[in-house]
């Protein structure tokens, strides 16, 4: 009689299978329908002109493109962050409710595979949604940039600017168009959504209600945007005002230790929208930090989930 082969501690293949089924599960929830209003918004922005941009004397093409990017990136961030929270919060309770969880866990599937698979599934859906929104952003921004380039060149030629200055003006506008730098902003929002999904996964492992998971994750999302203020207070006393009290220091320490720093993601994305010099090195650092956050939250989720009784 042959002995059953021992189940490995973690299998990437098994996690991928669970991730695949999670994607199917989320697609059946019709999550991609949300992309329709977003597409309409992006296309609508294409035709949106603020009043003060009218007339050649008020020609501000860079600001107009910047506004377009800000609104699109903001929408992408809002959608992906909320989606990461809600979908992750719904998955484990959903599996318990329709008893899928029992059929999975009664098989030789380690709980780590299940959690990682679920997270990969959510991340895959976020990635697809982000990709669609990114294509829309690039397309609308491309057309708008082209339009602004033509308008500005015509205007500058009419006024009699020398060729060198026209070229400089065009280069400045093109820098606000669909560049690689802009993709750094998109990637930054994607990484943020992945971290938020990992946070929601951790909470959903010990939470008894979906509502609690969603509410707590949203709170962490909000506090994460201010984590750097608390941390700055610890590293630099003057930043807190006069003299930080003990209460300030305790709260600051707790917030800095426990919560992730989401301001970094915002900063990189804003910097990319402003066409500042965001470097590939910054992206590597942000990616490393995100991997660290996700790793910590997944390990903790596994710890809680490993001996959870259903």
């Amino acid at each position, binding site marked *: 009689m042959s002995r059953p082969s021992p189940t490995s501690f973690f299998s990437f293949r098994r996690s991928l299978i669970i991730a695949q089924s999670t994607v199917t599960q989320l697609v059946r929830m019709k999550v991609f329908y949300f992309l329709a209003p977003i597409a309409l918004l992006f296309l609508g922005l294409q035709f949106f002109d603020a*009043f*003060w941009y009218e007339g050649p004397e008020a020609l501000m093409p860079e*600001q107009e493109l910047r506004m377009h990017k800000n609104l699109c990136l*903001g929408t992408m*961030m809002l959608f992906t962050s909320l989606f990461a929270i809600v979908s992750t919060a719904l998955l484990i309770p959903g599996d318990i409710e329709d008893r899928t969880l029992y059929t999975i866990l009664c098989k030789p599937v380690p709980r780590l595979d299940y959690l990682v698979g679920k997270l990969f599934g959510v991340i895959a859906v976020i990635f697809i949604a982000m990709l669609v929104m990114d294509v829309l952003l690039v397309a609308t921004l491309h057309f708008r940039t082209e339009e602004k380039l033509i308008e500005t060149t015509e205007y500058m030629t009419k006024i009699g600017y020398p060729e060198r200055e026209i070229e400089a003006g065009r280069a400045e506008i093109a820098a606000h168009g669909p560049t690689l730098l802009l993709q750094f902003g998109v990637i930054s929002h994607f990484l943020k959504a992945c971290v938020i999904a990992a946070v929601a996964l951790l909470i959903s492992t010990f939470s008894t209600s979906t509502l609690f998971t969603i509410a707590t994750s949203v709170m962490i*999302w909000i506090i994460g945007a201010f984590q750097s203020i608390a941390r700055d207070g610890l590293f630099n006393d003057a930043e807190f005002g006069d003299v930080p009290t003990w209460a300030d220091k305790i709260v600051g320490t707790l917030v800095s230790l426990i919560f992730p720093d989401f301001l970094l993601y915002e900063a990189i994305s*804003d910097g990319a929208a402003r066409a500042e010099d965001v470097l590939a090195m*910054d992206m590597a650092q942000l990616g490393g*930090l995100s991997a660290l956050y996700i790793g910590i939250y997944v390990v903790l989720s596994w710890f809680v989930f490993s001996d959870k009784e259903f």
Partner: protein
Amino acid sequence: MKRFKTFRNLLVIAGVLAGTGYLRMPVEQKFTEDLRERKIVQPRIESDAWGEMGQTSLAGTFGGLRTVMASMLSLKAQSHFEENEWYDLKKDYGVITALDPYNAFYWSHGGWHIGYNAASWARSNRNFSPARRRIMEMEFLEAGDEFYRKGLKYLPEEESLWFEIGSMWSNEYKRPDYERAAQAFDKARDSTNPIYRRRYLFTIARIPGREIEAYEEAIRLLTENPRHLGVPTFRCLLIVLSTNPKISDIEIKPTLDGVFRTKDKAYQDLFNYRQRVLDEGFYAGDIDGILLNLIAELDVPDELNPFLNPTSHRIHTEHWREGYERSKSKVPDWMLKKKEEGAR
């Protein structure tokens, strides 16, 4: 047992988060400081701006949508501009710039609304007494100046904001203060933009007692880039400032032929410059003497002689003589005859 497990789990989670947090905190701080130094991280929102923020802005800020909220608020501010609600507009721009302080457009646009539009509204509002109008206008001008300067704290390299301050204080339709304007233009004196570079000269040339300095500035500009000679006011200032008797005769002074391509061009430019002396207080020097010499030399018709025929009109072409002849030929012959007879 279940309660113990929950308590244990929470304790472990808190412990691991605190432990890893302790390790990652310096990394996060270093990364943030590096990004802040490169102005990629937005500065902290000032305490007074928190009080001014509405619920939507606060929610947006908490959600990490600072720049998006700034864009939306700038649209709202536009409606305050249309309704002449200047105090609300000022408040809005305070919040907008607190949310997105590295966007020069908001500083420039907000300053323009406060220092130009609000000040003009106060100046021309007949509902107030003249004294009140003046006080309000000055209030808005000072507020505009302060707003631009606040922007410069965040964007010290943004010469356009210095240029805006200078333009506001040298605007003859407001309350010109050329000393303040010159102080601002001085900061943009070494700009790569030739328009910004010249404005310091054009401003000090209107301040009595700073003519020598203005001449030295004109020479400095000319030495670094002769293309400044393409600007009529620059050409005229170069000539007129050199007529200042306080300027040493040892210095090589510019000549009409060297500065203007033709004598006709010189007459056109200097004729127009004289109007600026009268209207805008530019340095007069010996403009009258130069013009009288040119009138004699070029045999300028009386109609184009500002001493015989004072006018506020400008000469718009270098070929003014042909233009004058053409306009003269349009007059019917019988009228010209009558005119000549009358003259006899």
